[in-house]
């Protein structure tokens, strides 16, 4: 086993994801603790050019193959399994994303590597991998360790500011040929289905008023819409509201929805499960209104009010209007 820390680079439509830089930011801190290098693993069809942006790493290993171009985690898994077997890093960081979640468990079994999921913080202490994890919908914090290592970590979005992983640098860039036959990949990519166009793009809004399960019923939405209108904001939501078909999927914030970073994110009746929080935690200002004082949304909000949204929201809309007038 080496003492290196490996990070899987994730990219979508030719762009590196924020999650990649967050992992690099963590890796930058953990690699010296482990006493090894920070190595970025870049896999894809035509990805050599992305290596330039990975200045935070000491080394970039890239693998190019036609079959790594589509959203087929199994192809990634086969290449990664081979690579990790050969290189044997101390710790490998994967993002909790639609790609990472389809890799970590399989690599854990295939390579007999212990893994920790839902990681918010990571460190190497006296040779052990130590993670702080957010479990039970954010209701418990678990400190777990992999004694000695090696191991895998599935890191939650927002565990580290992405900017910490963006730095100038000139890592050694090395091509690696896959040692596995990708013809054996059993999952076949057929195509991408884009969301129906035409709706508001919530990722481009300066202010979002976001509504969750707490709104209770579809016809209560106008109460929140009125506040959004007063603020000149768009309405977004957590998953349950979209599941009920009260708002279209284009308004969903969080995992499998959109990631948003507005100047103001006003969360109304949203409890703040990690799946939601990962899509909004980088907003400049987060204000939360929820009747449940235990709601984890208050952990990420800058300001919070434990109150009945049906009481506060109309009053707030009124106060905003009065101020404008």
């Amino acid at each position: 086993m080496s003492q290196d820390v490996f990070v899987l680079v994730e990219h979508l439509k030719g762009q590196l994801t924020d999650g990649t830089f967050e992992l690099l930011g963590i890796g930058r801190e953990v690699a010296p603790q482990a006493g090894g290098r920070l190595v970025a693993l870049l896999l894809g069809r035509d990805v050599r050019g992305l290596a330039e942006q990975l200045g935070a790493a000491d080394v970039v290993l890239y693998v190019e193959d036609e079959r790594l171009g589509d959203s087929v985690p199994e192809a990634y898994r086969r290449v990664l399994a081979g690579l990790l077997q050969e290189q044997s890093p101390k710790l490998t960081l994967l993002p909790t994303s639609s790609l990472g979640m389809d890799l970590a468990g399989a690599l854990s079994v295939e390579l007999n590597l212990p893994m920790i999921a839902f990681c918010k913080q990571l460190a190497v202490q006296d040779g052990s991998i130590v993670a702080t994890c957010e479990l039970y919908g954010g209701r418990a914090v678990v400190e777990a360790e992999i004694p000695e290592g090696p191991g895998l970590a599935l890191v939650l979005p927002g565990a580290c500011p992405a900017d910490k992983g963006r730095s100038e640098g000139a890592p050694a860039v090395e091509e690696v040929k896959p040692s596995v036959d990708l013809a054996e990949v059993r999952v076949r990519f057929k195509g991408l289905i884009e969301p129906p166009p035409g709706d508001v793009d919530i990722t481009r809004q300066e202010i979002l008023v976001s509504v969750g399960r707490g709104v209770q019923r579809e016809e209560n939405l106008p109460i929140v819409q009125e506040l959004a209108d007063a603020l000149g904001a768009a309405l977004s939501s957590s998953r349950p509201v979209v599941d009920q078909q009260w708002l279209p999927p284009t308004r969903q914030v969080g995992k499998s929805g959109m990631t948003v970073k507005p100047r103001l994110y006003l969360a109304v009746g949203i409890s703040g499960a990690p799946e939601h929080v990962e899509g909004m935690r980088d907003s400049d200002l987060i204000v939360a209104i929820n009747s449940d004082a235990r709601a984890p949304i208050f952990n990420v909000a800058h300001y919070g009010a434990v109150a009945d949204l049906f009481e506060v929201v109309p009053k707030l809309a009124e106060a905003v209007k009065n101020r404008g007038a």
Partner: protein
Amino acid sequence: MLDIVVPIKQVPDLVEELEIDPSGTALGLERTRFVVNELDDHALEQALLLKEKHQAQVSVIALDVGDVEETLFMALAKGVDQAIKISGDFGPAPDNHTTARVLKDVLGGLSHNLILTGVQAIDDLDGQLGILLSSYLDLPYVGLVSGVQIDEGGSKATVLKELPGGVKAELELPLPAVLGIQAAEQPPRYVPVSRVRQAMRTATIEERSAAAEGNGHIRVRRISKPQVGAGAELLEGSSEDIAEQIVGILADRGILR
């Protein structure tokens, strides 16, 4: 014949406060109520939808932890063909590596060509069950699935996998396979209590036992509850007071027009 197996997991019911064991390294389970993992309920719904479409045989299978019998009887009441409870020396809170190995053991004696699980659960400290199971069984896996089509011959599945930004990938994989379900094609159905009670009187839960070897090899040092509102400055007072304070904060930051 399409044989669908749905492994379902019990997780603490978050309606009540979590309790921490005096050791500080585990949950206090004595007074904890358990519910089926929400996404496993979606996996079960997806299985029932496929059963209606393809006359599939559906089995649910669960380790004997938490309030598993209630969950299994509810599944029987919803119309699954078989419910299996597995006993063994895996303790009251086995990790997912252990659970996956136990399931693998039992699945060896159970016909299956499609395994549906919830893509994740709130207690997945050592990884997600579905993908671990797929690897122990050496079956193809796709997670974050929100749509499943089975072809005429029952030899392959076409699935929709959720990607960021509302985009979905359409993927095809040969059966047998394991799918991690994010959402069933329709919300999980209601099962009337009389059906559940009837199932409790007339249906049987099959019992199997399996050995649990090894575990996820991670050690829990400490479990604690996060400080509530640790991040937020809490605004107090009447609704009007709160509204005024929020307006003040927004005005200070130049957010109000």
